[in-house]
């Protein structure tokens, strides 16, 4: 028995379950309650759980993310949202210098069991300040985990797993996925937040991606299949730590790789993955690794310019063909 559900509703179901099963859990961010959440994810939850556990905050990202970290230290299991990654620079100090660091810096005395959710990515014509993909920055920080659910199963299952983790876990939800529907098994539960998964088998090239780009990669793979090129799709799911084993096993089979990543190209997560493949699979690579990333420009508002800046299916197809050589 499966049900058809949107990513948004799957996320909401995950939050509801977390609040039901874990009395120490609460959700906070601006407009999470009375407004219903900036992407309507938390709609209805205020009525069910009340204003203490669905906590509207002032516009104070450093304040309330820091407060979430403190609450986690104090014994709660906060789920703090930062509306979107675009505002997370304002609380990055708290994430980097406290949440990620306090355990090691205190000699292992304190853990910070916080979950921080952020919407990420472009595609809605929200322009330069509202279209960032900075997962790579967070994936650089020791002491935290970073995950990116790309499917409704992962949207439904990752939150609970994240909440069980004793350390900070950041969940990046691509804005273009909220309206996406998918099938959810009746018993859908927690999912492994450590492992990448193959979303499509293929022998010719490993197409490695995550989050919102997964579906572009899937579409590209279909087009490529029509041309006789079989792409194996690796959905990273965990951006920190990276699941080297799954990545390398795929590349060892295909001997070729293309990485699709919505971050700006220079210093992208794609660079890290490419480097690891080069480090670990150099002798079995038949071609240089391809990257399909976002152009190095603040994302423009106009649709055609935004589209030109972001990774698109034709660019993925072209990159694969160039790597495969046909």
């Amino acid at each position, binding site marked *: 028995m499966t049900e058809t559900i949107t990513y948004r509703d799957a996320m909401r179901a995950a939050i509801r379950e977390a609040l039901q099963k874990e009395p120490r859990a609460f959700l906070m961010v*601006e*407009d999470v*309650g*009375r*407004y*219903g959440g*900036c992407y309507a994810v938390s709609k209805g939850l205020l009525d069910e759980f009340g204003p203490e556990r669905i906590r*509207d*905050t*002032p*516009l*104070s*990202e*450093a*304040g309330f993310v820091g407060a979430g970290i403190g609450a986690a230290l104090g014994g709660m299991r906060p789920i703090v949202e930062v509306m979107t990654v*675009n*505002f997370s620079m*304002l609380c990055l100090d708290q994430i980097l210098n406290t949440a990620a660091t306090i355990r090691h810096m205190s000699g292992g005395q304190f853990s910070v069991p916080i979950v921080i959710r952020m919407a990420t990515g472009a595609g*809605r*014509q*929200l*322009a*330069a*300040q*509202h279209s960032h993909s900075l997962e790579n920055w967070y994936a650089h920080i020791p002491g935290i985990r970073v995950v990116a659910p790309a499917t409704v199963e992962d949207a439904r299952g990752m939150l609970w797993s994240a909440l069980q983790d004793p350390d900070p876990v950041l969940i990046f939800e691509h804005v273009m996925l909220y309206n996406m529907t998918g099938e959810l098994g009746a018993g859908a539960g927690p999912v492994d937040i450590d492992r990448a998964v193959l979303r499509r088998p293929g022998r010719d090239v490993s197409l490695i991606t995550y989050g919102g780009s997964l579906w572009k990669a899937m579409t590209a793979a279909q087009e490529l299949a029509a041309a006789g090129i079989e792409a194996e799709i690796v959905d990273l799911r965990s951006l920190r730590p990276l699941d080297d084993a799954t990545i390398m096993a795929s590349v060892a089979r295909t001997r070729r790789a293309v990485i699709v990543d919505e971050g700006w190209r220079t210093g992208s997560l794609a660079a890290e993955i490419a480097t690891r493949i080069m480090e670990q699979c150099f002798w079995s690579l038949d071609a240089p690794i391809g990257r399909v990333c976002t*152009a*190095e*420009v*603040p994302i*423009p*508002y*106009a*649709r*055609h*310019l935004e589209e*030109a*800046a972001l990774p698109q299916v034709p660019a993925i197809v072209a990159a694969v063909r160039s790597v495969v050589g046909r």
Partner: protein
Amino acid sequence: MTKDQAAKVHLTRAHVRGLYKEMLRIRRFEEKCAELYTQEKIRGFLHLYIGEEAIAVGVMQALQPADAVVATYREHGHALARGIDMSRTMAEMYGKQDGCSRGHGGSMHIFDAATRFYGGNAIVGGGLPLAVGLALADKMLGRSQVTACFFGEGAVAEGEFHESMNLAALWQLPVLFVCENNLYAMGTALAISESETDINRKAESYRMPSTIVDGMDIVATENAARRAVEAIRQGGGPAFLECRTYRFRAHSMFDAQLYRAKAEVEAWKEKCPIEHLRKWALDAGSLHAEDVDSVEAEVASELAAAIAFADSSPWESVARLLDDVHTPRQQP
């Protein structure tokens, strides 16, 4: 003539007509934008200023061309009142090449060098430090210019608000901080975001002079702004203006307005700054019925022209995608 008299508005027929027209330009422009949004000619986020027009228009009266303006993502009103061409503003809403930001910015990022309009900032509170810096430059360069910085009451909870207030007061910089207190930040009522809801008192805690004004009353707003700007220009340091207002429409096009009662909205609509001015001025004889009609007609034709301009403007070439990331270096 005392300073205070100098700052007083001369409510000539021409001036009142001008205020009325400026507000109506914003109102009609935005009503049209809402329509164009449903037609998908405008995309992204669209935040309407409807109901708050008296603030932008009132404050702009006090500014001179060399002054600077910093606003938020809810800035169409400020852009038009500041004198940015309606056609180029509309083209920007469309994302066209003739838009004032070449279509790169859209609704939230209207910029215009000619009128010293520095955006259009989609990070709440993000514009305040910028305003402080613009004023710092003016002061260091010995220019008697003023920077007007608009922001919502929601921004008052952000650290950047406080850092900026302190810097401006500490360095006695020529900034006019205009808080548009429309009682809500998205769905969050003021009492849910501030332990002290009397925003005015925040200014006090920086030793910054402040005034509360009825932001639905354009004459009061203009008066208060003139007085504040005059004092700033004389070297009196920054000032704070809390304008009490209300947004008649949803926060953006994605807002179901679950957080406020219809009756509350309706009650505030009764205070519409445009109708308020019209009734008052018609009664007082400072506006004639024919003015009301001719203004409506002028605005309608300006708007029609703006739409035609935006519709026919070309799209920026994709080949230029990366062109404006860096400024070309001058040859030595």
